[in-house]
């Protein structure tokens, strides 16, 4: 006796195939909803802000008149912020990742720390802003300086880079570590000559993605009291500054409707920078992936 009735099977087959097809289109629709909304947003912003993207826009400070408002101060401020944040964040997080993966003993405490670093990556940026306000702005009396903001941003993106670096270091096969150690290389030589070179693409990808998160962050900057409009650029890390997201945030609040277009122009610049950074990250990841 046949356990599966062949006739029944073929009778029901068309129904199954139909369901299969219908679901495919339903899911495509869901995907499109997201894409369409995103595209509308982008197109709307670009159309709105396009005519303000003149050379003057990049070379003038903000102004109360929309036609002469520019992002010079904010752009330079953001560059300062990134230039100071990047080295602090990179040194701290790659060092942490190296310690955790290569040196730390394998015990409960270290495991606990590892788990919590991943958890830190999910802490809202406002919380880091509050930490920065208490610790750097008030306690260390750095005021609303580039350094205070950079330290805050570094702490905020630290967990992201640590986790990315850890994964990257862990993916270096133990066989090539053994090869190095087996030739009498010290641990440090093995790290600098074998592990880091092999892990660096993944680490850089993590760094860029983390920095691109920091570049768009507004909340921590607001909390540590970074001014929204500033008519000079910093000359040192202890000077105050403004940043792109702060500038955008301040324009969008202005009553003059023309400023909505200026805002759009600012957003285009910010998005372009983000897009550029993410492209570099993706390029590096694709170029160096699957090497083992």
């Amino acid at each position, binding site marked *: 006796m046949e356990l599966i009735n062949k006739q029944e099977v073929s009778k029901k087959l068309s129904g199954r195939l139909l369901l299969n097809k219908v679901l495919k289109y339903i899911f495509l629709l869901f995907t499109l909803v997201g894409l369409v909304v995103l595209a509308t947003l982008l197109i709307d912003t670009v159309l709105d802000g396009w005519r303000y993207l003149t050379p003057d826009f990049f070379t003038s400070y903000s102004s109360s008149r929309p036609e002469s408002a520019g992002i010079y101060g904010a752009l330079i401020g953001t560059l300062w912020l990134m230039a100071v944040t990047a080295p602090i964040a990179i040194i701290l997080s790659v060092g942490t990742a190296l310690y955790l993966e290569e040196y730390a003993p394998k015990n409960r405490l270290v495991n606990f720390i590892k788990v919590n670093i991943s958890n830190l990556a999910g802490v809202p940026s406002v919380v880091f802003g509050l930490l920065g306000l208490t610790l750097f702005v008030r306690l260390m009396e750095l005021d609303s300086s580039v350094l205070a903001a950079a330290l805050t941003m570094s702490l905020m993106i630290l967990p992201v880079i640590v986790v990315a670096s850890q994964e990257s270091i862990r993916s270096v096969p133990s*066989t090539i570590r053994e090869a*190095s*150690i087996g*030739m*009498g290389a010290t641990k440090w030589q093995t790290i600098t000559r074998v592990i880091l*070179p092999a892990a660096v693409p993944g680490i850089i990808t993590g760094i860029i993605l983390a920095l691109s998160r920091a570049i768009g962050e507004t909340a921590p900057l607001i909390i540590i009291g970074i001014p929204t409009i500033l008519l000079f650029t910093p000359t040192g890390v202890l000077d105050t500054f403004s940043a792109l997201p702060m500038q955008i945030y301040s324009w969008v609040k202005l009553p003059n409707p023309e400023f909505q277009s200026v805002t759009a122009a600012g957003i285009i610049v910010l998005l372009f920078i983000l897009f550029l950074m993410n492209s570099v990250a993706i390029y590096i990841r694709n170029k160096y992936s699957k090497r083992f």
Partner: protein
Amino acid sequence: MTSSKVKEEKNMNTVYDTAVQDRTEENRTIEQTQAVFQAKDFNLWYGNNHALQNINLDFNENEISAIIGPSGCGKSTFIKSLNRMVELVPIVRTEGDIVYRDQSIFDKSYTVEDLRTKVGMVFQKPNPFPKSIYDNVAYGARVHGVRNKKVLDQVVEKSLKGAAIWDEVKDRLNDNAYGLSGGQQQRICIARALAIEPDVILMDEPTSALDPISTTKIEDLMHELKKDYSIVIVTHNMQQAARISDRTAFFYQGYVVEYDKTNVIFDKPKDQRTEDYVSGRFG
């Protein structure tokens, strides 16, 4: 050298053994050779797993010593004890001693880096660095402080020639070693080990991941290397042990059942378990 020639040589060894004059001559050479490694009541635990039990073995200079035995009997653990790589596993604990050229390798004043410079290792799976062929072979010399490009060039050429792969790669030293075949990669790894000018070379199943032709090449190479180096090789291929080694240790469940000249182990072993294993009855 072809495999038939290898066989011939093994037959010749048997002929040697039966001829009385030749035997005395062989005994004399063995007396002359010196032990490079001596394990003395060596014990090792992974946590509670007593993986090596009372190991007593002497490995001689300019000989190929083979370690055979069923999977999980402690061959890798033992060979990795000889350069203290086994200590990378945190739960490892040892007792007893291993002496390398009259000095205990566990001596406080003996740094592992120093030991591993004299005792090189070739691993089961070819494990070149994701670097150029040149940088792979020059790695050891650079780690030990050689900066001079001329010296490095010489080291690389000499080592690649020593590993019988110079002709195959001399025109593409700057290519990534990952582009080579498995057999070539393994010879690059041997060249890399030779480049630190070791005294002893440890090999843990160096041909188990390779095809028969590459295997033959590496076995031939080992015959050459024996003139200048002492070699300890782990293999689960008994024919390989029979073909290439001078002495063979049979490991079983963490201890040495029998250790003798290779032809004794294969032709007239004293222990029943050795006989069962080499005749393929278990393992």
